[in-house]
């Protein structure tokens, strides 16, 4: 029988607020253990949480950018379970009144993925198991998270990857999270089930917990789907359970032990008050949302005439897109800019991280100046490249690099005069050309370029040279 994989995602995204969700401790990553802590975030008896408004604002921004409805009234709830990384033995989260609901995104295939809900909650501390001992650091405890829950709308790992990349990009664009999977600021639980192709009933699902890379998600889902198919084929039933991916073995294994018998006993957090969101507030927050990446990509293609590949490359990094848009201010041709960024600037970076950072010596205003010269034909592409290269290397401005002479450009008369000289001083090439060797023009062209410091338009020069030869003979 043929099977179809059905997946739903629960994605945890750490918000880039300055402080934790319920206290003023910093959210900075790393630091000496237990130095970003206070009585509140280590849950000392008697302490009470106080909600950071930025968390609410960021969650609403995330919700709006994923086409969610924003709740008028939301509240916080306690999710009770005992674990050493959870100092209060409950996580303050949202149960039945989350901030955002009923959103969706559209994949490139046109398929829609439903967003069931987005809620805010606190992160747990970190456990390190070593030599039969457990070491606990609560620095991460209380760092704000949003959990983005999708509908079980995924049918392939590619869709999952596209969705996650989309989330990552969107969250970065709106500035609510850096979504670094390797640092754990984006983590993913994948619900996986299989069913015979054509069936409209869902199979029993398992939950793959805490996936922290795209590669692992792909591997884990593939393994888990195959495992479930095996179970079904052998006449048994898939058990609904939580499983963890064993990276080394490339397998998934059951996490359920007797101790994990979970019944979260949700109830309203009595130490916090109702969250009420007005329409005015939503509109104010909406204004904080910049143009989203999918909009940008289609604008770049349709309005700026870029190729899809180039558009996506630029939009992939918000700082690059920002730089690009500022650099093309007042120009008519946008391709020059994207070409220079992609071919020249990107080659300076080795890692994705560096592209993300986009730390360069060149201000968009300078880039714009250079591009204007290029567009006006004052300088040629090769000069532009060389100049930009030097700008990147030294941080010098356009006018510091190009001489007055360079900036003057080359008049038709000057070019014609140099072309004449080229013809005069290359009788052999002229003879070759007349003898049918079209390529002979190139050596005369070389003369022209050399004597104009590359400022000449090669095509135009070639035409002039040929005209002179024809006129002379």
């Amino acid at each position, binding site marked *: 029988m043929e099977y179809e994989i059905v997946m739903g995602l629960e994605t945890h995204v750490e918000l880039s607020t300055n402080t934790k969700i319920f206290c003023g401790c910093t959210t900075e990553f790393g630091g000496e253990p237990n130095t970003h802590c206070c009585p509140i975030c280590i849950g000392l008896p008697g302490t009470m949480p106080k909600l950071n408004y930025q968390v609410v604002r960021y969650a609403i921004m995330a919700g709006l950018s994923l086409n969610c409805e924003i709740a008028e009234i939301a509240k916080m709830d306690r999710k009770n379970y005992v674990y050493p990384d959870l*100092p209060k033995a409950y996580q303050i989260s949202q149960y039945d009144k989350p901030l955002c609901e009923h959103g969706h995104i559209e994949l490139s295939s046109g398929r829609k993925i439903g967003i069931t809900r987005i809620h805010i909650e606190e992160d747990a501390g970190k456990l390190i198991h070593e030599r039969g001992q457990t070491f606990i650091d609560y620095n991460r405890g209380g760092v704000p998270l949003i959990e983005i829950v999708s509908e079980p709308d995924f049918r392939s790992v590619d869709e999952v990857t596209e969705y996650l990349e989309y989330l990552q990009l969107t969250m970065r664009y709106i500035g609510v999270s850096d979504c670094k999977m390797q640092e754990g600021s984006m983590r993913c639980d994948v619900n996986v089930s299989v069913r015979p192709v054509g069936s409209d009933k869902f199979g029993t699902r398992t939950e793959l917990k805490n996936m922290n890379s795209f590669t692992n998600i792909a591997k884990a889902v593939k393994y888990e789907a195959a495992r479930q198919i095996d179970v079904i084929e052998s006449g048994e039933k898939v058990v609904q359970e939580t499983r963890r991916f064993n990276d080394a073995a490339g397998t998934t294994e059951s996490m359920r032990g007797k101790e994990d018998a979970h*019944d979260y006993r949700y109830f309203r957090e009595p130490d916090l008050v109702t969250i009420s969101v007005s329409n005015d507030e939503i509109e104010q927050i909406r204004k904080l949302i910049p143009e989203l990446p999918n909009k940008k990509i289609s604008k770049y293609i349709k309005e700026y005439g870029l190729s899809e590949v180039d558009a996506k490359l630029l939009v992939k990094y918000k700082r690059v897109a920002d730089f690009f848009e500022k650099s093309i201010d007042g120009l008519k041709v946008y391709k020059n800019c994207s070409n220079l960024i992609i071919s020249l600037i990107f080659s300076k970076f080795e890692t994705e991280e560096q592209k993300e950072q986009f730390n360069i010596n060149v201000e968009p205003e300078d880039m714009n100046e250079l591009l204007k010269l290029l567009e006006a034909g004052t300088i040629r592409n090769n000069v532009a490249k060389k100049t930009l290269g030097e700008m990147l290397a030294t941080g010098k401005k356009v006018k510091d690099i190009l001489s007055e002479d360079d900036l003057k450009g080359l008049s038709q008369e000057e070019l014609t005069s140099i072309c004449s000289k080229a013809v005069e001083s290359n009788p052999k090439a002229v003879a070759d050309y007349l003898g049918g060797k079209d390529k002979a023009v190139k050596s005369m062209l070389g003369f022209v370029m050399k004597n104009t410091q590359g400022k000449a338009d090669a095509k135009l020069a070639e035409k002039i040279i040929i005209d002179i030869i024809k006129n002379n003979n």
Partner: protein
Amino acid sequence: MISKIHELLKTKKISCVELVQKYLSAIDAMNDELIAYVNVSADLALESAKAIDEKIASGEDFDVLCGIPMTLKDNISTKGIETTCCSNILRGYTPIYDASVWKKLKNKGSILLGKANMDEFAMGSSCETSCFGGAKNPHNHKYVAGGSSGGVASAVGAGIAAYGLGSDTGGSIRQPASFCGLVGLKPTYGAVSRFGLIAYASSLDQIGPITTSAKDAAIVYDEIAFKDDMDSTCKGKLCDTVSHIDDDIKGLKIGIASEYFKSIDSEVEDSINKALDVYKSMGANVVDISLPSIDYALPVYYIIACAEASSNLGRYDGIRYGFRASEYKSIHEMISKTRSQGFGDEVKRRILLGTYVLSSGYYDAYYKKAQMLRGNIVNGFSSAFENCDVILAPTVPMTAFENGTTSRDPVEIYQTDICTVSINIAGLPAVSLPCGFDSKKLPIGMQLIGPKFSEANLLCLANKFEQATDRCFFKNIEGGINL
């Protein structure tokens, strides 16, 4: 008492150090028997007293609470001073921060003599679930001081603290105040910051004063009721209460709800009827009101309180503070053993009940239904207060229990909270004040219940009764400080 001490300090009839020494030696003499204090911070108290004497000597103006020796229930966090909730699981725990109320009072110059005994995690009505043994009633040591703030009531009642702060989740300030012949104020939910109060049931808990007069309660309330940034649910007070303590009560309508008089000891009922006469003589009107919604207040209270407690007490896992079991084979086992060895029986029963009523399959029938009934009770009080300004009721159906009689049937003990819990459920303020003695010479208490943030009115009424009866229901205890 507070004003009197203030006067003595101001007129330099006594130095603060002398005053504190007096209290400390009285504690020395009486506490072994009373177990009012579980931890006496003598050195710190004397140190603070010295500083206050210097302040007084410098001629600086000083606040009415400055230099007043007092106590805090042991569930109020005190930086650097062990805070145990009278539970073995928190033995040795020293907070690294101050509860907001204590921070305020410390700033005002109040002097902490020590931490007061209580039922373990405030779960009990006799103080006998304390891991240190129950606090005794200063009127008769054969009887309990009450609970859960038994230690505060015992200390203030015996005259070994000028005032104290307790906490009231289902009657834990008012009941011991009633048993010990004192004034106990349970403020409106949200009037006083809970930050630093070790939670039993967060939607019911409130900190409040136990004092020897309504005026003292007003003085303390005015200081501790402020809007606190650390507690999101805290609004502070509506107005000062001291300035209203002598307001006229003519024409005030006192409501009597028959629901509060079911299965009440006759001696208690008689005292309350006499008190009503006193109020009538002062020009108050008495009206009958009906509060049928409180019939289910007791089970509603226990369901909600235990549900929240089961969550609030989950954190005692032996990892970061307090007791840790010494022998175990895994961390999970360590946690279970720590909790089983560290918590007493009553705490365990309430955690189990709380877990039960929140667990899937039972949530709707218990927790959710109790919440709906809570709504009924809130509404019931709202309509009742359309017909009266305050409600007068017994604080407890009886006088203090004999020592050792509360360990029998847990449910039987729960029933004794019948008059107090509905007030917490509705988040209302209530003050208990003494109104008689029974044949065993044990104090009888009554409570005045008002709409939210009506503390000024309640304390004024309490003060009026105290004056009209010439403080005859307050009794000085031999050996205590009586200035």
